[in-house]
């Protein structure tokens, strides 16, 4: 390796090849992924999140919630994701096409949140989430900085969280979620993947003694002439 320029060229080339292979390669495959238009429903999936929820995703990202929560359900036969009620089907790339910054997460200290609003039998409501965020739990920190404690002037706020006993605020005052907390709650309540895309269905296991198929291949063209199915429960 006496030739300096050749060494530099090699270094440059090595990184260029892997960048082209991984980043550009996957971009060519998925970059043009579109929402899925369902004729019978007359609309596209995934649906655009309301503005409040989109703002909430920024709050989710800036607080670093992804340090403990994932937002990716693995396929039913890979891990216990379905058994834990986190989702009936695996997450696919199309679920995230509208998200400015998907928060896949890398750690599961807390539950997966992909389908938080579609949980069965009962999904949390805004009140539950606001209380959890304010009070915390033995396993979840309470973020009181997302709430204002203020004097009640005139009518009490409809948004104030209802606390009883020792936790109740002093008489004449109330605890109201700030706008950030409200957006965060709106975002959490928008997390649901009710629609089954053709590519998201589990590939049936092949009969024994045959070579296993690639079960988590998800990328298929946007227009798959296939029968669609809607698991219409749990949509917020």
């Amino acid at each position, binding site marked *: 390796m006496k030739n300096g320029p050749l060494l530099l060229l090699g270094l440059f080339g090595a990184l260029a090849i892997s*960048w082209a292979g*991984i980043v550009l390669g996957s971009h060519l495959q*998925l970059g043009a992924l579109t929402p899925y238009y369902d004729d019978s429903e007359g609309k596209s999936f995934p649906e655009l999140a309301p503005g409040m929820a989109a703002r909430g995703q920024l709050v989710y990202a800036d*607080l670093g919630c992804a340090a403990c929560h994932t937002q990716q359900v693995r396929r039913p036969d890979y*891990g216990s994701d379905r058994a834990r009620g986190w989702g009936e089907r695996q997450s696919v790339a199309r679920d995230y096409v509208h998200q400015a910054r998907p928060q896949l997460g890398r*750690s599961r200290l807390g539950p997966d949140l992909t389908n938080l609003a579609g949980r069965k039998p009962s999904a949390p409501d805004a009140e539950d989430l606001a209380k959890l965020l304010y009070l915390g739990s033995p396993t979840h920190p309470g973020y009181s900085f997302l709430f204002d404690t203020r004097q009640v002037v005139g009518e009490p706020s409809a948004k104030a969280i209802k606390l009883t006993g020792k936790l109740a605020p002093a008489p004449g005052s109330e605890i109201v979620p700030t706008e950030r907390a409200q957006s965060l709650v709106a975002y959490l309540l928008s997390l649901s993947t009710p629609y089954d895309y053709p590519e998201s269905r589990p590939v049936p296991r092949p009969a024994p003694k045959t070579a296993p198929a690639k079960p988590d291949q998800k990328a298929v063209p946007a227009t798959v002439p296939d029968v669609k199915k809607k698991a219409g429960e749990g949509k917020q």
Partner: protein
Amino acid sequence: MINAPTRATTAEVTAIDTQARGPLLLLVGSGLGWLVASGIFALITSIQLHSPGFMADCSWLTHGRAEALRETAFIYGWAANAGLALGLWVLGRLGGSPLRALNWAVVGTVFWNLGVIGGLIGIATGDMTSFAHFQLPRYVQPAMLLAYGAIAVPGVLAWSGRRTDGTYASQWYAVAALFLFPWLFSAAQVVLLWAPVRGTLQAIAAGWYAQSLWACWLAPMALAGAYYVVPKVAGRVLPSYDFAPLGFWTLIFVGTWTGGRHLVGGPVPAWIATIAVVACAMLLFHYMVVTLNLRGACGTSGTAIRFIRFGLVAYVLTGALDALTSFRSVAVDTQFTFLASALEQLGLSGGVSMMLFGGIYFMVPRLTGRTWASSALADGHRWFVMTGVVVLIGALAVAGWTQADALLDAKVALSDIFGHVRLPLLVASGAQLLVLGANLLFLVHFCQSACACCLTAAPAENPFRQPSTLEAPAS
């Protein structure tokens, strides 16, 4: 091609080092400062794992933010500063002439560290990018790229103006680290921040960056030091040196393809993870070559070499475990658990940090022209930090194992898992405290040694010194 550094009994020319003293000590000193800062954040995040309410009221230090602060201070503060100091020094020495344009490095260091400070404030106030190992807010990143360029100038000049015919393995690694970081940092900025790719492609690009950062920057910086120090201290030519170029190119060509292993089972094309599994297995060749080349680190004594030995073992173990955990059948257990954190700590705190420590213990006496201030402090640092890191990784592995087992069983509620891992996480917090204390000790020791050198005129009449006279008191 046997052109490894020759016997260490050859006189060492310190005249080359004295000119670089100030700038390189500045880099090392700021690196150590960041290491302590990162240790404080690590302690906070570690306590938050078993006591979630800790500092929860403080919006600057939610667990997610503290985690990003810890990681950023470690990588862009400690590893960057210390690794660059070591890289520049190695390039200067092996280039055969004093480093030039060191003013650039000083200015670059100041702005780089200002960038890190700005970045940490940004993260604490909610501007992090939320990509692992790439959390610096977008507004500090271009400035840091420029600052990095300025720090690298002396290295580039030393490389292009080298007086020797052949080149050495530590030079390849140092040059690779120096050149490749701007490449991958700017490429990641483009596809993640300025013109972000859509949806889960961001996760793929972020995985590519995080892994390339490891394979093309962190590991080469640490190895540049190890490949320089081991033959010097062992006093003999590196064994199996003919394989070294192959090991080097394997790391650079294959290492960057392993990023997809964290996305196994995720909403990305399956080939991303498959190619990562293959690349992880191929990369084992690199770890094998490093083991072959640097096996001389065993059976040699001295503070520097002891750190490097520890670092090499951790580095090679990281490679083997990376390959093992990349398999789908293993990843189904280990993914999303503390085992992943344990593995990351093994690579960063066990591998890279320890090799950088070794390099610093070897380099600083040669820069200052005098031995370390206190051998007791050096020994204390070594014992505490090594014990701390071993206990930390062990505790995280136990927690991870328990968590992995319980996560697979859907009948165990998440809150019960929390109860099961509480004890090992408490131990991990104790270990973090120990590591923090040890690194604080090292910072104090470094300041003592650097100040002693600045306050008294250097006795540099005779520029030729035997390495043994510089090593002895600290070993």
